[in-house]
């Protein structure tokens, strides 16, 4: 057990606790703010694993853009000034089922692909932009292209959905 292991474990606990608070918080804004803590701890985990570039992209995209978008959406649609009615949904069982199924698939996938994988963080290349760029554009270029097309399709779909040609 090294110092890095301890820090990684602590960050993992923070991340997990914050994630639990996200789903149990009774206030949608509080949930979004706990999500910031969760993503921040996750970025810390990446840093401990020497994946510097991924860590800062995590902060830039997920905290700086995704959570801001969620907060913006919540403030725009529910206009929850001050204390508000607790948010409770009637279809909890369905949500639990969907959540468990997703978690099952992800855990199986991650365990199956990285079982026993071990990275010695003292004898590995730091994951800066050069290393990641080489990996993405040399070995995983097909996956990268597929993801780009998927995102482009989502973008075009969003524009089609919000556009009204009637007026």
């Amino acid at each position, binding site marked *: 057990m090294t110092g890095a292991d301890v820090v990684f474990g602590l960050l993992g606990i923070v991340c997990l606790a914050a994630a639990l608070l996200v789903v149990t918080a009774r206030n949608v804004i509080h949930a979004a703010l706990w999500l910031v803590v969760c993503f921040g701890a996750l970025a810390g985990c990446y840093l401990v694993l020497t994946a510097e570039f991924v860590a800062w992209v995590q902060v830039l995209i997920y*905290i*700086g*853009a995704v*959570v801001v978008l969620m907060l913006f959406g919540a403030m725009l649609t529910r*206009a929850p000034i001050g*204390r508000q009615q607790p948010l409770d949904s009637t279809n909890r069982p369905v949500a639990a089922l969907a959540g468990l199924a997703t978690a099952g698939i992800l855990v199986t996938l991650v365990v199956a692909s990285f079982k026993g994988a071990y990275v010695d963080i003292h004898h590995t290349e730091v994951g800066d932009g050069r290393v990641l760029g080489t990996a993405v554009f040399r070995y995983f270029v097909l996956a990268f292209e597929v993801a780009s097309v998927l995102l482009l399709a989502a973008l075009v779909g969003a524009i089609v959905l919000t556009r009204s040609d009637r007026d």
Partner: protein
Amino acid sequence: MTALEVIGKLLGCLVVFLTVPLLVGQLEHKVMAHMQSRLGPMYAGGFHGWAQLVADGVKFVQKESVVPARADRRVFELAPLVALLPYLFVLIAIPVAPGHSAHDLSVGVFFALAVVSVGVIGVLMAGWASANKYSLLGGLRAGAQLMAYELPLVLAAASVAMAAGTLSLDGIAHAWHWWWLPYQGVGLFVFFVAALAELRRPPFDMPLADSEIVFGPFTEYTGLRFGLFILAEYAGIVVFSALTAVLFLGGWKGPFLETGLGWLWLLIKTFLLSFVVIWLRVSYPRLREDQLQKFAWAGLVPLALAQVALTGVVRVATA
């Protein structure tokens, strides 16, 4: 690097963080005043009112800190710190002389942009937790503005990183040549304008618009917490001016004595850019919300993409 050296550098960052924004604030008082044919502060401290901001700070500390009855107390109290601290952390990565920053990161550009983008969460927290409709409107406008201007900001920074072939801030300053001014000029324009919008400075101060929504997200704040938000604004001006200087104007590069006086060149460039920020505040009227969005998506994003394309073509052609 010894522990003592690290502590020294961090203390240096803290000192810069606590003094340079005040200098910019004083500069704003005086420059705005003279541009409007006034004198500005003349009495505090004696010589041309140099101590005006010290007096302001003392005033903020003395005032009562009020939390509105219906406000979400914890979020309300935490918001000023979330808005201010990111700018302190960014200073760590800014190179002040060849190879000298408090901590040189290989992904410095992404570090700086990522940490700066956290600050807006503080503004959104303030806007929501105040339990005030003006604050909420201001928070909404701030969120919409930040999302619109984040993209051109990152694209312009990506262009200059491509041109330099590195993500390290020090590496970019090293790779800079004078002919990057025309070559990355569009990027410079896009980055600086998007930075102004990120800072909610005029003409992009729709979220604060004092003539319609009092003071936006900061309406309910008093005393020290209000002071912290104002400090965050000026620290933001310093950080974004310094980032613009490092990315697009060569940072510590100067006509002579680069190794000895690098920090001075950077400081001069930072203050010149801060002066432009103030100048723009005096010169331009506030953009309306729809003009603001259109300017970002139909103006800056295409310009930034064109700059990225140009940099890509030049890089491939000269490779």
